[in-house]
């Protein structure tokens, strides 16, 4: 992979310059970009999100929630039927669902849904990664913005020009 592409990194101090650089690059047809920011920035997202689908995390959430709901329903109903005990004049189960069990179902839905969401985030966000990616710079978690451009070998120089033109404080491979 390293053989087929080369990566150029531009470090910016300001949002507007970063945005400008991104606009340029996209205009020039560079789409394989990684942008590092200390905080999520609308301007930058607006540029990047144009041609990307919405994050698939929500599917995880939905499935998780449904699984929780179903499993809670099964758990409560099935276990009640193990001994079918009357308590307080209430039969073991009511159909389709005994009112008291709704609470359990709700809680399990939230639990499973929440956990699934996080799993989704971890998986989709390629976390955890134990070694920082080559183009990462510690300042990106503080007050600097980074734009890493992955381009075919040889195109690097032109990318550097774009970045400098846009106003990068620093540009390196």
């Amino acid at each position: 992979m390293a053989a087929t592409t080369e990566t150029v990194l531009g470090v910016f101090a300001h949002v507007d310059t970063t945005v400008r650089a991104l606009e340029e690059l996209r205009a020039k047809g560079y789409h394989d970009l990684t942008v590092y920011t200390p905080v999520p920035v609308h301007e930058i997202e607006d540029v990047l999100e144009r041609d990307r689908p919405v994050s698939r995390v929500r599917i995880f959430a939905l499935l998780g929630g449904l699984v929780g709901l179903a499993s809670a329903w099964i758990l409560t109903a099935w276990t009640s039927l193990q001994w079918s005990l009357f308590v307080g004049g209430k039969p073991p189960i009511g159909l389709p669902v005994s009112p008291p069990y709704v609470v359990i179902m709700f809680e399990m839905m939230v639990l499973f849904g929440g956990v699934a969401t996080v799993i989704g985030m971890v998986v989709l966000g390629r976390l955890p990664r134990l070694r920082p990616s080559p183009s990462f710079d510690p300042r990106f978690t503080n007050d600097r913005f980074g734009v890493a451009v992955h381009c075919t070998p040889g195109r690097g120089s032109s990318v550097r020009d774009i970045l400098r033109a846009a106003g990068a404080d620093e540009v390196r491979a």
Partner: protein
Amino acid sequence: MTTKAGVGALGILLLAVLIFLAVSSWSRQPAVAARPSSQPINFPHNTHVQTYKIDCQYCHADARRSEYAGLPSVQRCLGCHKIVATDKPEIKKLTEYGAKAEPIPWTRVYKLPEFTYFPHKAHVQFGVRCQTCHGAVETMTTVSAHTGPTLTNDLLNVAGFRVAPPPLSMGWCVDCHREQNATRSAHAPLDCVACHH
């Protein structure tokens, strides 16, 4: 890389489950199963049952009429052993007890928790064979019990397998009661308080 962290997390989780189950099953251990060696007289069940074809209830005479199966009185043992095999060392011990008019301090093998009420009478009269609960006593020299909930059993349960519960554990009793009610239209109680009162 992801896998490493995942494996770690899974390991911790598993450990927690193990500890929890260990505690839970420890807290539910029923009878202490005695070691055969610990009996005052080395009584060979197999000889009596197989060789001499003595019925269990000849010695354990209370089983059919009482909560307890009961043990034969020294007198009853001597009933035969006044004449039979009096020269054997074990029998000599017996005769001593008889002579001193002392009870034989048998070590208890089967003992349910005190919060469990088990009447032999009902089971024997219904025709449950002694072996069903006590194992193949006729093949044992001195009886030993292998009972009680086991860790592996709980693990399998948690894993979702409905393994047959170990003998004399509650699930085991319940299984039998349910089965008998279904197959032989018995009236084996399934009320908690039938045994726990």
